[in-house]
């Protein structure tokens, strides 16, 4: 199959090369200076102070964004699966943020979240809530949550589309018979939509967790890990290892990240997959 060959040449081979390089010590792409180093690169990463902070931020980010993306995605999907006034327009609007590229999103929110000139604080001030004004992206404690909200803003509509697609497969017969039995909206959701939507929910959930743990671009576009290293995540740590020329360490860090993601994602996937029911 051509797909598999492509996949092997352009994905597996580079990954193996990456794994190989991660076991060496070298600087830049100076292959002549490479020496076998065993696990030194991995140990270097794990003992670093920044790594702990990055791990904390990465997990916070993954958990917070997954919860809210799923919640909003599901609510929007249920609401927009009905025939409403201009449903299609609404679906388009909610999907719109996913379409805009991350650099642009970073640009928009950096300016909206400026403490004095930004739209958010000015709006809060205008309605008399200036007490809620924050240094959204520069308060070291708050910044990671502000980035979370940007991610949720961008991707909730995307989750909605995945879930809506899944809803198309639920036979309308179920709802009709439930209707006859006098089921309430909530009961219909609880006993028909939710269980039958589990495969789609599972997909969206897994994608969201993986996306959350791999996060890099939105951080890069808004705070670049700053102020200082307050919003450093694992993805930006990898980027920096490469940036400083310690190529092997970057490879090691990205393999470490893959292992962490694997440990979290695979059991989650299995767990939900076991609960899926065949229609």
């Amino acid at each position, binding site marked *: 199959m051509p797909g598999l060959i492509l996949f092997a040449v352009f994905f597996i081979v580079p990954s193996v090369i990456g794994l190989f390089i991660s076991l060496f*010590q*070298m*600087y*830049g*792409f*100076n*292959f*002549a*200076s490479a*020496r076998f180093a065993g696990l030194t690169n991995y140990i*270097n990463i794990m003992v670093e102070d920044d790594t702990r902070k990055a791990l904390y931020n990465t997990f916070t980010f993954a958990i917070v964004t997954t919860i809210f993306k799923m919640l909003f995605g599901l609510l929007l999907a249920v609401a927009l699966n009905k025939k409403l006034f201009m449903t299609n327009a609404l679906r388009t609007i909610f999907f719109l943020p996913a379409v805009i590229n991350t650099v642009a999103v970073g640009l928009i929110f*950096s300016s909206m*979240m*400026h*403490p*004095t000139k*930004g739209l958010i604080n000015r709006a809060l001030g205008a309605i008399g809530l200036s007490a809620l004004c924050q*240094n959204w*992206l*520069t308060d*070291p404690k708050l910044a990671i949550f502000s980035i979370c909200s940007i991610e949720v803003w961008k991707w909730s509509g995307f989750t909605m589309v995945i879930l809506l697609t899944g809803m198309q497969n639920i036979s309308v017969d179920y709802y009709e018979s439930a209707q006859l039995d006098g089921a309430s909206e909530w009961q219909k959701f609880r006993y028909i939509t939710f269980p039958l939507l589990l495969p789609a929910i599972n997909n969206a959930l897994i994608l969201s967790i993986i996306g959350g743990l791999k996060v890099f671009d939105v951080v890069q576009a808004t705070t*670049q*890990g*700053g*102020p*200082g*290293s*307050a919003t450093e995540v694992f993805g930006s740590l990898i*980027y*920096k290892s*490469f*940036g*400083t*020329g*310690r190529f*092997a*360490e970057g490879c090691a860090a990205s393999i470490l990240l893959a292992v962490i993601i694997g440990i979290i994602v695979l059991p989650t996937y299995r767990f939900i997959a076991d609960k899926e029911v065949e229609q």
Partner: protein
Amino acid sequence: MKNNWGKKLTAVTLAGLMTLSATACGSSAEAAGGGAPESKDVETLTVLMYTDWYKSGWEALEKHVNDNADELGFRLEISKIQGGNQGDQVVKTKFASDDLPDIIQVYKPQWVETNAGQEGLNKLVDLSDAVDVSEYDPNALDGTYNYNGKLYGIPMDSIVLSGVFYNKQVFADAGVEVPQTWDELLSACEVFKSKGIVPVYYSAKDVWSVQPPAVTGPVIEAKNRGISTFELMNQIDTHQLTYTECTAFVDAIQKSKDLIDKGYVNETYLSDTVDMAHEALANGECAMYINGTWCADNIEQKFPEQSENIGGFAIPQDDGDNYINMFTPYSLCLTTNCKNVELGKKAMNYLASSEAQQIYASAQPGLYLNKNVKSEMPAATADLKTIMDNGKSMTDWEEINKYSYGNLGENVLDYYTGTFKEASDVTKALDEETAKSAEAMGDDNWK
């Protein structure tokens, strides 16, 4: 159903093709409109640089070369990639995989050596026998363009000097003189603060811009030790000295934070950008801004009527013996990938000549290395140039290091925001990064 799906796909493909043909028409029209027809002996040389380096100077020079391609015998085709870490990464990869353009603009030949090794340096053509450098001061070329006895590149762009930029009107209104010592600077700040003017503007949203206040430190350290920054960095490269041992460096970082603690810096400095700093300085919302002469260039471009009103001085030290940092212009290098080396050399010779450099300089005023280039420069740049001409400047140390020290700006911000408690934590972080990079290279000095 199947038909319908097929139709959709066709529609999308068609739409795609239509856009394609529309753009194709557009670009061919563009090509037809553009200048002299190509004759047979005009060859195109490809050039690669970072987007932020392609400014009005390059724009003018590119146009001039391509308009006169017939006489010169070559045209330039310039590709630009984004700057920053990612751009650097792309350039390093290109060196390693031998995927280079004919001509490449890099920070310095040293940068190539650090990031791509001797092998990388070997991919640059020695220009000693091809480029006439009589228009340049040999001292200015040595150590950077002229490296290890070979001329690896020619200077392109202007010299950047870094210091304090100030609004003359704001100073005059407050009755404040240009400060010569650190104490004078502090009392000046106090005056501005009491008048409700931001004394010093920081723009930490653009992380690099927190560096200029700190980077004078190593220059002062070198001065105190009676050596040049090249020698200072040589000691650091060979592990005879650490950044933390440079007390003047730690002191400079400490002082930059003192200004924040004393309330002399704009409150929202963490969210403010370099752009906003230029505007604040030009409009007199702030009195001073510490940066490189890029600042003067930008103000001249964006607020031309204010340019004369901006001056420059060196960051004042305790003893009033003040120095500024000098950033040498980027290097334009010919690579071994250039098929027609003779033509490449000819082109480089032309680009280094005062004729080409003058075209660049006229479009982008500033301070140029070529002695025959005459260029007007913004008042602030002229102020700093006077300081340089008095021998009170040293080459900036940041690009002549052998090992990466990580990200200074980020470490400084960690200090400003409380993650680091002491100014020396910043330099310790630099030392740790340097050690790691040196170990990765297998340098015995770090064993």
